[in-house]
């Protein structure tokens, strides 16, 4: 009798386990970002490597120091701090003084993530709020964009405006002047040979990474597709000059941080709704706010603020679309 007891294992569900874990997912997402990151090193040169490395190192270090100081379990191995640093780095312009990425990373990891209780409890996407903090704190340093001319060898880059900045300040005509024909413009937006934040420029490599995440089912299509579709439709309807339905949706879809934001940051598990229907509402909201800021707001790019604003609404959306419990009786209104 005594020997037989060991043959039965009684445990709490779930009983079927997979090798997937937080750690696995975080490192996979980081890997998915890697091609676009390499492209940014190619376009923007050593400065890009410097900024990204600084972000990653200070994110991981500040997580370690904070958790050590508060006697919490140290979780730097789960890759979430690494991913936060990587995403923040990819969202920054290439030429920055050294203290800017450090402050942004400390802000993202300590204030936005750890003070709210660590991974899984943060309301906002840490990397994006870190960037928002930097944009408001050092507006000038954060909007100096380098032209993608470094090609790993060149040491310095020419400063220029981003395509969206040109579009906002001077209109489509000027944008065509800069890039030549329409197909040239689309091509450079697609490959990433344009000014912008480090990791956001190469649309095609980001899409490659996103395809990998979709294939592995780490993200679902609901948020990115509704986000991109809303942006596309609104750009087509309102993006033109004067008349409706004359805008160019492709420029809006491929420029700015939209691809990076829609696939890698709006889909953050912690800060988006968990119910599919809610995720579609979330994506549409992100898209609408993005276009509102791009077309009418003071900033040329609105993806960051749109995602952050919708992060606030994620719990509310989840409540709104919560399905009825099967068999539960609805409480009668008095």
């Amino acid at each position: 009798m005594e020997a037989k007891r060991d043959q039965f294992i009684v445990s709490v569900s779930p009983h079927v386990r997979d090798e997937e874990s937080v750690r696995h997912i975080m490192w996979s997402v980081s890997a998915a970002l890697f091609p676009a990151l390499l492209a940014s090193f190619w376009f923007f040169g050593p400065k890009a490597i410097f900024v990204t490395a600084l972000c990653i190192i200070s994110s991981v270090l500040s997580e370690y120091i904070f958790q050590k100081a508060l006697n919490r379990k140290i979780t730097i191995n789960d890759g979430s701090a690494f991913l936060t640093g990587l995403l923040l780095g990819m969202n920054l312009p290439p030429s920055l003084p050294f203290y800017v990425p450090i402050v942004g990373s400390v802000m993202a990891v300590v204030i936005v993530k750890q003070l709210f209780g660590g991974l899984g409890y943060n309301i906002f996407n840490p990397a994006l709020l870190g960037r928002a903090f930097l944009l408001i704190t050092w507006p000038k340093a954060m909007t100096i964009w380098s032209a993608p001319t470094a090609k790993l060898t060149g040491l310095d880059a020419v400063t220029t405006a981003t395509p969206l900045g040109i579009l906002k300040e001077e209109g489509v005509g000027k944008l065509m002047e800069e890039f030549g024909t329409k197909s040239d413009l689309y091509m450079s937006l697609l490959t990433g040979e344009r000014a912008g934040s480090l990791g956001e420029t190469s649309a095609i490599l980001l899409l490659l990474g996103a395809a990998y995440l979709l294939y592995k089912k780490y993200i679902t299509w609901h948020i990115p597709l509704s986000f991109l579709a809303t942006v596309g439709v609104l750009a087509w309807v309102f993006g033109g000059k004067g008349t409706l339905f004359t805008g160019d949706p492709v420029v809006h879809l491929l420029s700015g941080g939209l691809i990076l934001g829609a696939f890698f940051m709006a889909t953050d598990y912690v800060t988006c709704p968990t119910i599919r229907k809610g995720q579609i509402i979330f994506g549409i909201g992100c898209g609408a706010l993005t276009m509102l800021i791009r077309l009418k707001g003071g900033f040329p790019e609105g993806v960051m603020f749109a995602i952050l604003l919708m992060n606030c609404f994620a719990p509310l959306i989840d409540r709104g679309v919560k399905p009825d419990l099967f068999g539960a009786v609805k409480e009668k209104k008095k």
Partner: protein
Amino acid sequence: MAHTDKSNWELIKNGMFSENTIFRMAISLCPSIAVTNSLKNGFFMGVAVIFVQTMVNLTVSLIRNFINPKIRIPIFMLIIAGYVSLIDMSMAAFARPVYKQIGLYIQLIVAFASIFARAEVFAVKNKIVPSVADGFGMGVGFFLAMIVISFFRELLGKGALWGIPIVPGHPLLIMILPAGGFFAVGLLMGFFNWMDMKLTARKAAQGTTR
């Protein structure tokens, strides 16, 4: 009527630390974010509140036996508004540059929860001297909070103190914007709560070993 049995010094200390308006009670937070973007503004705001809080407690305590409880709230309002007008006009006359920046918030002292609350829960039930001590303590507590918040905000946001540049370089612009006010108040409140936790833990430890 519940008379207080605390000594005057205890009452002042109570207002300054254990029932600090901003960091412990978390009331009157609006000016703590709105006017603390420079040390000078914070200082004058604090002084104005010390004056109004003390004088309101004094007056309410003086006439406490004549206030009909049914109309006590309008009476408190009148007293508070009177003293606020006094400090408002004096600042407009003698501290013109500061008044231009924070004048609106000086007038808003009328609606301060902390001043009204002390009149209602303390001054109307207590003798004059404890009431003045309580009002003064509360005012000083608010004053200290404003000084601490505006010290950090001006130092980080402008690299300056009292308008004099101290730290060269690129300051954190966000700290003098409203968003920075929330950061400063939240972090300082957290810090003081943490200190409080440590102190009570130490006191408890001493109590058991004795």
